[in-house]
């Protein structure tokens, strides 16, 4: 019993470090949807700075801690938010994973590069990064030991970690749940556009959460330092372990994540104390956290289908070559392949030929990412496991006398089977859960399966003699190169066919429009499993070919972590298309050599990873796609120029329509004059190259309701967005009470007094009713006014807004406006999907606000509800106002006509 209690205490205290790291992970995941794989890297860099300041430069502990934890870490967080995370909020899960993986490599590399430069170039007398074992933390050196009761021992470092973890968890919980900035952070995550419309600076909220999270990472790094050697690798491993605690907290609950960390520490301690069987399976004790992680993901994932966060709906990648004829699309590839072949066979010396052949083998591995992530939309961090599985299997069989071909096929199949095993429990979970569980299985494979002597032959591995298939003798690198080119080509063909296959189309449907896909009854589990297995097989094939190139295979060639770096590289070049992966493979192979021409530092390659992540945040489809897009835009411009040269006379035909900067038959509210609160003049704009509004003039006076009618696709919502600041205008001017606000977008527009009720309900479904109101009405007294007016909201103030009925949600969205009527209200289809009785209430609210002096712009597709209350009516058709006038002048026939062919006569 004594032993048990001692184990419980020591395990729990040790677990506090996981708790501390996990709470930071949960914070940023909950507030930005990004699971920060670089959290451990931040912890490392902060701890390293602390070490250099404290031990290196002799600063006192408090000063070093203040600068590293309270200044450096949060500033780094703000910087990373600005250049990377901010643009990732709406990105696909794979992009998020990759960007933070890039940082995980780059942040420590920059830290070490700067340190080495200071030492080598500037001759600073500070310790280098080598061999820093158990550096001092915040506590005394050497540590103090206590024996409070019985056999229980605890030391000062443990106490500090425990205290830091408790304090951090409590402070965090208060900040996120009980402060205004915390509420704003949560609102920004749920519906960033709506948050902006509510006047919340989502960028500021995001920066704040990253600063806080980095600060927590830094704290964990510094207090945990005495437990580890100060290397980036150690911190990353600890972070992976902490992910287990975060998952126990379902990536949402900071208190639960804290408990999760303690539980994990306990599990490890009790396991080491009692589970004697573990010793017989090499790697099992080490793998306990990974097993807990896996179980956690499967159990918690089942319960909620997916854990927290949104599965981003992915826009299908535009085809930038659609305007080119087929030969023109293929031409660059034919030329490139021909040039490559000639160089490979006739020009390259032996050394470079080897690099290119190896690059082709890597291309195969990288193509497997195109299958699983580019097409399947799943992030797999286990690709290195499949590579090792296939190559070891092939090597093992060949050493037992199998010929190459059957051994290789068996290897590829073995990889595919392992792929199925990885995918089976987690493919339903999707997104991040799949990524994490694949990583857990990869680490498990590495520690246990590949450590199995009979399979891997210790670290000696197996020989893979260069195969000879009939007349094809792969002893020669030229032959091997040609064989590889053919194999790569075949795999590319398979991938092209996969995209066009039934499975491929189903997967694409689910990725781009999940609700629609589920509506037509697409079940994807089988398709996804098949894609995962195929991807594992392709990766395995790459592994076999690298084995052929190397002449041997070992369990150490491709550790699990390498899969993360591979993913980063493939995404950098474009993961949606095979071409990106093929080029990535070759670049990956030759880049160390090329970088070697410039610098001796091994850090540089790592730093480039980070730049890659930054680049990625800007071009999520990869570098190649970026080139294509630029080409497309160039061609579009050229066409436009040609067109304007050819048809200059056309615009002279209708000079009457001409309006400076735009063309509009009618100006809405032209009689309003200088009194207009909202004044849109000659507004043109749309989405990217697609122009939706072709010149709109709208003036709205205070205390009036203007109804904007029009059919689907007329541009009504676009006009609303542009007026509310959710979309920039390409040209034209938008004024509010005479002030030009064209350039102030998002929350800044809101602060000018514009309220916006978007087409779907303007509420944050995950926040409670009370929290929804608090975002706009900071004072409790104001909220009470709402509750008095809408008792049903008062009754449900603690419920999540998403659980209210549609009408209640619309009330919740509009209610705060009644308390503080805005200057301008823009309501986009407020009656959509509501019962007639509720619609009446909504319209009554609009009238009430008009009576308070608000200028109301209501967009409706159906005129029935809005006409009785509107003062002015305008018809919008294909981006132009086709008629406008007083509501009284509109008659039903004219209205019907407006939907058929322009406005009323």
């Amino acid at each position: 019993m004594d032993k048990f209690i001692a184990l419980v205490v020591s395990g729990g205290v040790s677990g506090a470090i996981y708790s501390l790291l996990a709470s930071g992970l949960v914070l940023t995941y909950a507030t930005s949807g990004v699971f920060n794989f670089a959290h451990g890297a931040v912890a490392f860099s902060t701890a390293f700075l602390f070490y250099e300041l404290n031990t290196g430069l002799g600063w006192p502990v408090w000063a070093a801690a203040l600068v590293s934890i309270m200044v450096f870490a949060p500033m780094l967080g703000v910087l990373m938010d600005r250049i990377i995370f901010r643009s990732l909020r709406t990105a696909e899960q794979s992009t998020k994973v990759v960007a933070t993986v890039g940082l995980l490599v780059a942040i420590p590399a920059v830290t070490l590069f700067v340190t080495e430069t200071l030492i080598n170039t500037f001759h600073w007398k500070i310790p280098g990064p080598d061999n820093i074992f158990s550096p001092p933390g915040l506590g005394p050196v050497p540590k103090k030991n206590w024996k409070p009761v019985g056999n229980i021992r605890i030391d000062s470092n443990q106490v500090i970690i425990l205290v830091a973890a408790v304090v951090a968890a409590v402070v965090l919980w208060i900040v996120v749940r009980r402060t205004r900035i915390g509420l704003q952070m949560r609102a920004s995550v749920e519906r960033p556009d709506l948050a902006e419309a509510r006047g919340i600076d989502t960028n500021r909220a995001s920066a704040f959460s990253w600063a806080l999270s980095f600060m927590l990472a830094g704290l964990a790094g510094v207090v945990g330092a005495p437990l580890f050697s100060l290397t980036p690798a150690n911190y990353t491993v600890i972070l992976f372990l902490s992910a287990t605690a975060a998952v126990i907290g379902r990536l949402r609950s900071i208190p639960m994540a804290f408990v999760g960390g303690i539980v994990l520490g306990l599990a490890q301690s009790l396991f080491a104390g009692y589970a004697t069987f573990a010793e017989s399976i090499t790697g099992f004790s080490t793998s306990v956290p990974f097993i807990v992680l896996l179980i956690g993901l499967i159990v918690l994932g089942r319960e909620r289908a997916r854990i927290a966060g949104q599965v981003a709906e992915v826009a299908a990648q535009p085809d930038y070559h659609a305007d080119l004829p087929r030969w023109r699309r293929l031409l660059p590839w034919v030329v490139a392949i021909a040039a490559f072949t000639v160089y490979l066979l006739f020009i390259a010396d032996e050394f470079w030929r080897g690099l290119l052949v190896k690059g082709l083998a890597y291309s195969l591995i990288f193509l497997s990412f195109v299958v699983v992530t580019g097409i399947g939309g799943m992030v797999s961090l286990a690709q290195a496991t499949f590579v090792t599985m296939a190559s070891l299997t092939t090597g093992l069989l060949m050493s037992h006398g199998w010929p190459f071909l059957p051994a290789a096929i068996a290897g590829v199949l073995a990889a595919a089977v392992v792929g199925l095993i990885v995918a089976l429990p987690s493919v339903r979970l999707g997104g991040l859960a799949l990524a994490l569980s694949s990583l857990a299985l990869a680490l498990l494979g590495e520690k246990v399966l590949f450590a199995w002597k009979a399979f891997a032959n210790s670290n000696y591995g197996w020989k893979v003699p260069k195969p000879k298939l009939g007349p094809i003798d792969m002893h020669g690198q030229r032959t091997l190169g040609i064989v590889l080119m053919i194999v790569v080509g075949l795999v590319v063909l398979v991938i092209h066919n996969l995209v066009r296959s039934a499975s491929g189309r189903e997967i694409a449907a689910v990725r781009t429009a999940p609700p629609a896909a589920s509506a037509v009854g697409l079940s994807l589990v089988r398709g996804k499993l098949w894609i995962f297995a195929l991807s594992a097989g392709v990766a395995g094939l790459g592994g076999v070919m690298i084995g052929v190139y190397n002449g041997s295979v070992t369990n150490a060639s491709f550790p699990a972590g390498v899969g993360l770096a591979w993913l980063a590289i493939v995404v950098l070049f474009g993961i949606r298309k095979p071409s990106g992966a093929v080029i990535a493979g070759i670049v990956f192979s030759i880049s160390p050599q090329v970088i070697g021409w410039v610098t001796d530092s091994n850090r540089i390659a790592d730093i480039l990873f980070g730049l890659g992540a930054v680049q990625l945040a800007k071009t999520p489809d990869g570098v190649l796609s970026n080139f294509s897009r630029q080409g497309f835009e160039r061609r579009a411009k050229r066409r436009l120029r040609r067109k304007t040269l050819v048809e200059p006379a056309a615009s002279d035909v209708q000079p009457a329509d001409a309006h400076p900067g735009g063309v509009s038959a009618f100006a809405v509210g032209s009689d309003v004059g200088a009194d207009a609160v909202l004044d849109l003049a000659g507004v043109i704009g749309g989405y990217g190259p697609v122009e939706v509004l072709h010149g709109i003039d709208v003036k709205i006076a205070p205390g009036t309701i203007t109804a904007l009618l029009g059919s689907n696709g007329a541009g009504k919502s676009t006009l609303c967005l542009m007026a509310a600041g959710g979309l920039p205008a390409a040209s034209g001017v938008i004024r509010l009470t005479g002030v030009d606000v064209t350039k102030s977008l998002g929350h800044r527009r809101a602060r000018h007094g514009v309220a916006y009720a978007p087409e779907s309900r303007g509420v944050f479904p995950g926040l409670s009713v009370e929290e929804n109101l608090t975002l706009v009405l900071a004072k409790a007294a104001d909220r009470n006014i709402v509750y008095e007016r809408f008792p049903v909201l008062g009754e449900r103030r603690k419920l999540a807004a998403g659980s209210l009925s549609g009408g209640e949600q619309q009330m919740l969205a509009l209610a705060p406006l009644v308390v503080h009527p805005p200057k301008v209200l823009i309501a986009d289809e407020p009656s959509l999907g509501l019962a007639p009785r509720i619609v009446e209430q909504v319209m009554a609210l609009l009238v009430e606000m008009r009576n308070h002096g608000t200028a109301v712009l209501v967009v409706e597709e159906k005129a029935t509800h809005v006409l009785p209350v509107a003062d002015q009516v305008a018809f919008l058709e294909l981006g132009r106002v086709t008629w406008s006038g007083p509501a009284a002048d509109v008659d039903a026939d004219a209205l019907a006509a407006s939907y058929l062919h322009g406005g009323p006569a």
Partner: protein
Amino acid sequence: MRNTRQGRAGRLLKGGALATVLALVAVGCGSDAKSSSSTQASTAPTTASSTAASTATSTGDSTAGSTSSGGTVRGVTDTQITIGGLSALTSPGGGYTGADAGAKARFDRANNEGGINGRMINYIGVKDDGEDSTKNLDLARELVQKDDVFALAPVVGQGLLPASSDFLEESKVPYVGWGFMPGFCGSKFGFGFNGCITPPDGSIVNTSLAGTLVQALKLGAGDTVAVQGYDAEGGKLGADILAAGFEKAGVKVVYKDTSMPTTDATDFTPFVQKIMEADGGKPPTAVAMVSLFNNTVGLTGSLKTAGYEGATMNFLTYVPGLLASAPQVAAAIDGTYVNTQWLPQEFGGPAIDQLKADLTASGADPTVGFGTAIGYWSADVLIQMLQAVGPDLTPENFDKVINGGWTYEPQGDPFGIGPVSYPQDHNQPTPCAALVQVDGTSYKPILPMTCYEIVKK
């Protein structure tokens, strides 16, 4: 020991290089599995690639093999021999800093003494693989195919997987280094300066692992020892061999555990609990550890905190400069014994004096760091080999002379590294070691390099 992991991002998950390597090196761990290493390549069903005939074809289409048709020898002219190095000078966990300077110091002295058989050594320096096996193979190919080296020294780091060492062997490039990777075992051209440290034959017991402590503390019947390994194959084999060493010396092994996780931040309480009761409820006379660096420091410190008064010994914590720069480590391991594979500079004497003089003469820092010693002793062994081969320097001749029966003669008393013999030590380590004790912030010399024996389990 199979913590040998590389690949650029493999570093993400890898522990400190030195820490893991030290653990790896500590004990001859090996495997009794049917090895496919190059020794047995000839038994492989398909054409073995280690034969001379396959050199050209397996390394490429053109002739960049050892000898070209014109009769010239790669890397050798009438006046000079080109030698390079291939090591992990840097790695995310710290590399073998100083390996380059150590080798250069030794080659410089050879040149100052008139070269080798009339030829000067053209030492082109160490290429740094950053512990990345993919880069290691690229660099090996570059050294052979572009730089035309005759031989390599030093070669050290986890990047040297069979892909690289097989290539070097096929290209007939002798390479000398710290032999803890498979490429130093069974390869005709791979020479560890203290042999093959991890032989595939797991029954080989290097008694120097236990021997120094047994000798220094005069352990014998009636004494007990606990052996703590770690949770990887290397940790298990290492613990087995260490335990066998103690048993051969008549010391009773009362505890052998290999379940300590290979991740840092381990909770040591469960292990301390078990060790403190290992000898029938009492603590054992000594505790020997084959573990990763932090676990070694942590367990040693925790044992002391728990009131353990016996001796502790490990293979990792002799790192020059460590104790002064890391007071918390020094405090945790104060009093512990460390078994080393080459003579620590604290012993002084002619070998160390010469080493320091050579470093100073070549303009390097005379402190004998960890990497410095590896670079220096690798070069020292290669120089004796080249002298033995004589003026007719070709890879074939090198093979004939060295693998025909050759022994490195240690210089001075106490000597720096033990005598290493080839071809014998292609398949086993040299059973020599020294022992120091941590004393505050310095290492106290206990036992100079002493050679024991290799026995079968």
